[in-house]
């Protein structure tokens, strides 16, 4: 059953060096308040799994600026000059992944699959050190599952059962990551007393462990 906590209380679920998934795409659908609480602590050396490192003053981007990220497994860093600077200065390790493969690797972990086979990245640097598997005379790369210790995601709507629904283009990685982490923390803009309609629920509440209470939730 989902528990309600404050953003400050969420910090206790993190440890140095953990693998952390954070939802969002650039400036859209980003959890904020848990990240702001992490920034107040000495926590460090996270391995970040996310679509991108956003911009320096937003969500994931702030963690990079504060040197909290040891390694980032992402599809894009170009919108955050500080990530690029740290990468060039070898202060951060960057593992660039094709975006669709990144999404499928997260899903594979959440869905109990041993990996996925994709043609994306064949004959490129992405294929280095990866197995090629041939199915019906077509080559595919074997991409392995990506799992996290903690996932922090945004939702537009939640109910007290932890069910989630989304407005606009905020679904992005927020929908997938709750399947693929041991501890799942959600920052929802609207938490309703009445259950969300089963017809409209995108992420079932069984994937969610903690909901940040709205009054402590800076997410907008």
């Amino acid at each position, binding site marked *: 059953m989902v528990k309600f906590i404050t953003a400050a209380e969420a910090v206790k679920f993190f440890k140095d060096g953990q693998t952390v998934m954070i939802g969002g795409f650039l400036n859209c*659908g980003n959890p904020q308040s848990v990240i702001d609480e992490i920034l107040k602590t000495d926590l460090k050396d996270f391995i970040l799994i996310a679509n991108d490192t956003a911009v320096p003053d937003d969500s994931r981007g702030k963690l990079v600026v504060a040197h909290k990220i040891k390694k980032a497994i992402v599809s894009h860093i170009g919108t955050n000059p500080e990530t690029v600077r740290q990468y060039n200065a070898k202060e951060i390790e960057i593992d660039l992944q094709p975006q669709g493969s990144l999404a499928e690797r997260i899903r594979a972990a959440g869905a109990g699959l041993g990996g996925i086979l994709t043609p994306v990245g064949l004959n490129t*640097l992405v294929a280095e050190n990866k197995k090629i598997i041939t199915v019906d005379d077509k080559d595919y790369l074997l991409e392995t599952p990506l799992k996290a210790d903690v996932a922090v995601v945004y939702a537009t709507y939640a109910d007290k059962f932890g069910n989630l629904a989304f407005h606009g283009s905020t679904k992005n990685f927020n*929908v997938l990551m709750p399947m693929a982490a041991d501890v799942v923390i959600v920052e929802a803009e609207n938490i309703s007393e009445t259950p969300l309609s089963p017809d409209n629920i995108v992420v079932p509440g069984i994937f969610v462990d903690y909901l940040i209470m709205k009054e402590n939730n800076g997410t907008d």
Partner: protein
Amino acid sequence: MELTKEQAQEIIARRVAKEFNDGDVVTLGIGLPTKAISYVPEDVHIIVQSENGVLGVGAYQDDSNRDKHIINAGGFGVTVNDGGCFVDSLTAFAMMRGGHIDITVLGALQVDAEGNLANWCIPGKFTPGMGGAMDLVVGTKCLIIAMEHTAKGAPKIVQKCTLPLTVAHKVNMIITEKAVFEIKNRQLILREISPYSSLDDIRENTPADFSVDLVK
């Protein structure tokens, strides 16, 4: 004649728009490829897909319809046309990889005579990441590269890409302000010469082997 950057981009965007057929599902890269939308004829209705999970991307938002939770892949606020929808990243990429996109238009750092594309990394200098580019190019029915013919005078259409590849042997067409090329069976074919260029000009700026088979 020397074209300004803006003039060159408009020529390219106008020519790209002619490739769209009514009903096509289209994905456009950030920047120049996206400009093609402005030149789609009124009787041609395309469905624009954005990798962050929007199908049916419409006009940019204005003061009457701001919503920061509806963006395109470049992070800009957009509207959604009638019939459009929002999907998660898995579904967005299934559309691309699974062969559900008719035309993909992207920019390039380099394209070569065999249809190889490099557009995500200059080792040691510029590594923004591939984002969705590698996935975008794999499943599409038609991959068009829309770009200025040269970068600060340096050729971008080359015999063999020297930069890290985005995809091998996949580009179908290259549209620049000077020319339109098709790539068939790993052979580069010059199909159109822009009114602002000439065969000599194209040869001078294209260090790749190509045949000439102009559209009448």
